[in-house]
């Protein structure tokens, strides 16, 4: 009996302690006609040896293409120590730290994580994580609606240069609460959200403005101007940021005169493998004034009866298990293990390490763009500053090109025409620090072949 330790003798003794004749008797309250005999549709059990073979074959079947896709998930180097430690049983198999005294390991680690996220974002406080960046933005929108007491409109300005799936997820999650998500256009030449596009909302009742830095196109927004514009109009600012970029880019806590109100993003670039899309984690930081509107768990430092430092879950009155239908969110389980890994990751890289990773990604993408845009039929689609991702315009539909590249074991990027009618033949590319000169040369060669 895999994973079940009972012996025949023990089963016998236990049943007689219960006073039941059989295990089946314990299920006597289930109406007989609803009881099933078994689960014929499930295959029989396997040994670990057999499942090893099956999974190894399947993992191998998907190959190891050279990846130039970013678009929200990035192939970064992760130190070996990160997951070796994160998967230690004491982290891996613990529950949410409800019994603080028996969970100081996880609690202190989360406190350190919160400290690292506030360090990166230059914000006052951080929570212990949300599911991912996209759902994190949805929570930020809901939070902004609670936090902006001055606004009644529940209207949120959403730039179109935001990762489109972040917009979709936000819509799915906030739509039932009378919240209106308003598209804001980007400048076709630069990919940026211009103040001109915001002009129509000046003086209007707007709850929050979302700013994505970098944008989905990799282009950089004038974050100071946008933030100041919003605050001047009593609009809260929600920053959506790539946390790795914050090693080198101005942190949202310093945008404009006052910094943003809420900063969210996906923690994947900080120690989570791409792994088909998850588990990653969403992080959320905010100004101290808004902390009681935050969703999710928060750890605080305190003292015990003897005055020793210790850590606890705090401000729980915001949460569903206390507040139920009045909670700030329904979130309960979050992404603890990935946060654990990420905290170790950040401590191993340090600020300097993250700066070098960011710079290296940026330089590799620049090199890639230079190399590819030298090819006939390829142009750089957007001008102006960008960070570690870029848009190229091809002389052909992107989908066909990507298929041709995949046959050569290259994942060439993300087809922007899927989401943006105006970006016909536009391809979003990214070369992280993991891409070598050789990788880039292979890409250039394959692209040249695919285009002619």
């Amino acid at each position, binding site marked *: 009996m895999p994973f079940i330790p009972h012996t025949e003798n023990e*089963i016998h003794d236990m049943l007689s302690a219960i006073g039941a004749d059989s295990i089946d008797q314990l299920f006597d309250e289930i109406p007989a006609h609803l009881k099933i005999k078994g689960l014929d549709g499930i295959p029989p059990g396997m040994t670990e040896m057999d499942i090893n073979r099956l999974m190894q074959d399947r993992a191998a079947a998907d190959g190891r293409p050279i990846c130039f896709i970013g678009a929200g998930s990035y192939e970064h180097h992760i130190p070996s120590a990160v997951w070796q430690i994160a998967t230690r049983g004491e982290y891996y198999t613990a529950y949410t730290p409800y019994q603080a005294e028996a969970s*100081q390991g996880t609690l202190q680690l989360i406190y350190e994580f919160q400290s690292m996220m506030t360090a990166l974002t230059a914000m006052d406080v951080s929570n212990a994580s949300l599911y991912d960046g996209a759902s994190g933005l949805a929570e930020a929108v809901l939070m902004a609606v609670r936090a902006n007491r001055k606004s009644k409109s529940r209207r949120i300005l959403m730039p179109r240069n935001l990762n489109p799936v972040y917009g979709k997820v936000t819509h799915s999650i906030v739509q039932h609460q009378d919240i209106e998500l308003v598209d804001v256009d980007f400048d076709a030449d630069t990919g940026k959200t211009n103040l001109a596009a915001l002009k129509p909302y000046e003086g209007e009742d707007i709850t929050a403005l979302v700013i994505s830095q970098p944008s989905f196109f990799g282009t950089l927004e004038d974050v100071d101007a946008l933030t100041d514009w919003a605050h001047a109009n009593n609009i809260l600012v929600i920053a959506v940021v790539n946390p790795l970029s914050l090693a080198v880019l101005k942190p949202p806590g310093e945008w404009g005169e006052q910094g943003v109100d809420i900063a969210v993003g996906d923690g994947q670039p900080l120690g989570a493998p791409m792994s088909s899309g*998850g588990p990653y984690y969403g992080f959320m930081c905010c100004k101290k004034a808004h902390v009681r509107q935050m969703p999710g768990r928060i750890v605080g430092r305190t003292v015990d009866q003897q005055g020793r430092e210790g850590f606890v879950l705090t*401000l729980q009155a915001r949460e569903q298990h206390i507040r139920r239908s009045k909670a700030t969110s329904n979130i309960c389980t979050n992404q603890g293990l990935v946060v654990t890994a990420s905290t170790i990751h950040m401590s191993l890289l340090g600020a300097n390490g993250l700066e070098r990773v960011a710079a290296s990604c940026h330089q590799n993408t620049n090199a890639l763009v230079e190399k590819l845009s030298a090819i006939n039929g390829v142009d750089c689609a957007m001008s102006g500053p960008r960070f570690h991702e870029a848009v190229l315009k091809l002389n052909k539909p992107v989908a066909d090109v990507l298929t041709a590249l995949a046959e050569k074991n290259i994942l060439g990027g993300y087809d922007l025409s899927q989401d943006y009618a105006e970006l016909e033949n536009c391809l979003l590319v990214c070369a992280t620090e993991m891409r070598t000169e050789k990788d880039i040369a292979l890409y250039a060669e394959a692209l040249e072949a695919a285009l002619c």
Partner: protein
Amino acid sequence: MLIFEHTAAGRKTKIQAPETDTKISDIPENLMRKTSAPLPEVSEMQAVRHYTSLSQKNFSIDTHFYPLGSCTMKHNPRACNSLAMLPGFLARHPLAPDTCSQGFLACMYELQNMLCEVTGMAGFSLTPMAGAQGEFAGVAMIRAYHDANGDVERKEILIPDAAHGTNPATATMCGYSVKEIPTLENGDVDVAALKAAVGPQTAGLMLTNPSTLGVFERNIEEIAAVIHKAGGLLYYDGANLNAILGKIRPGDMGFDVIHSNLHKTFSTPHGGGGPGSGAIGVSERLKPFMPLPVVTREGDQYRWLTEKDCPQSIGRMSAFMGNAGVLLRAYVYMRLLGREGMQRVAEFATLNANYMMAKLKEKGFQAAIPDRYASHEFIITLKKQAKDLNVTAMDFAKRLLDLGYHAPTTYFPLLVPECLLIEPTESEAKEALDGFIEALVQIQQEAETDPDMLKAAPYTMPVNRLDEVRAARQLDLSWGSSRD
């Protein structure tokens, strides 16, 4: 000591990042960071030592019996971890084309099907990233269904008072108001009250069965009929399927939608608070509304279904497809167990719970629902001890830590005073259950002879009871803030 306190300014660990110059010259100064982020600067050894030592301050399944009710702290087979972390799976970009993803998609497709089979539902979507998100997707589908039928006046969700906090919180997020239904002394839903509450405003009912009181809802068919007759839909909070796997299926009971916490029943680890998976199953009529993406099979090829295929979908819950790594772990677990193994889960989880309840009753403890068999969990109420000895459930819980046992869930469900919700799971051996029972007996004796001692427990942990009031009042939420 915090990792930040091991920092020495100017320490550089050059091994983990490329040796690039950090200079970026093509981004304007005003968009750049001015000073480095105040992150720790430590050596690999310092980080390894710090986080290895910290880990030892945790209780976990791998080190302790952890009978936390409603949380299903069962063994997490180590193979699930190593196979989900095969390099091929870890390196797969979520947007890789289907042609380079057949191995992964095959696992997801089979997982969907196995979940349909164990729950009796018609379709499954794997995208919700925890139970609460599964609930959200489920209730949003109920709403989408009513909306699609033009049935827009249904504004209320009914929820028994024993429900998990995520249920009412979810209903609110979906724009519903919540009406609580009381529970009878015997643990069943008060059907009379339910009948009184139901009406044309009823969008649906969210029910956990077996309930968080640890008993099977005997009137389930009647309840289903009442709701369906009123035009509402039935939501099954399947966070804990451990009690019914291979015994009875929510679909057969008449439920329209169910989420399953794969991090409970299907043994993906809790990781100190996640990641989880709240995969969501639907009956035929809700299929068009499932959240995306979902894997389908065409011929011998697998592919993702998207908005184009499913125009009525409630949409996306995550940037990609949910917690893929968690799903792979659940897949491996289900394949290891197979059909017989799954049924055994319910049998032995139930055996263990009933054995503990019987033994504790024998030792003089009071079960919340003493006359029925428990499901996979059961409740002890210490209200007598609280009254007679001034010793609370919390005191018992803290003292258990000293004796090497994680405490059961305390003070949930809210309707039972001074309660301990105990869930041993099927993976614990009799010796562990007996040890725990003896520990409770010892604490009961201590409560009688030296109640003050219990008030200050635990004694053997890294800290004793922490000042939670101070934590909430004098907020110290990050290293930076405390230095200000």
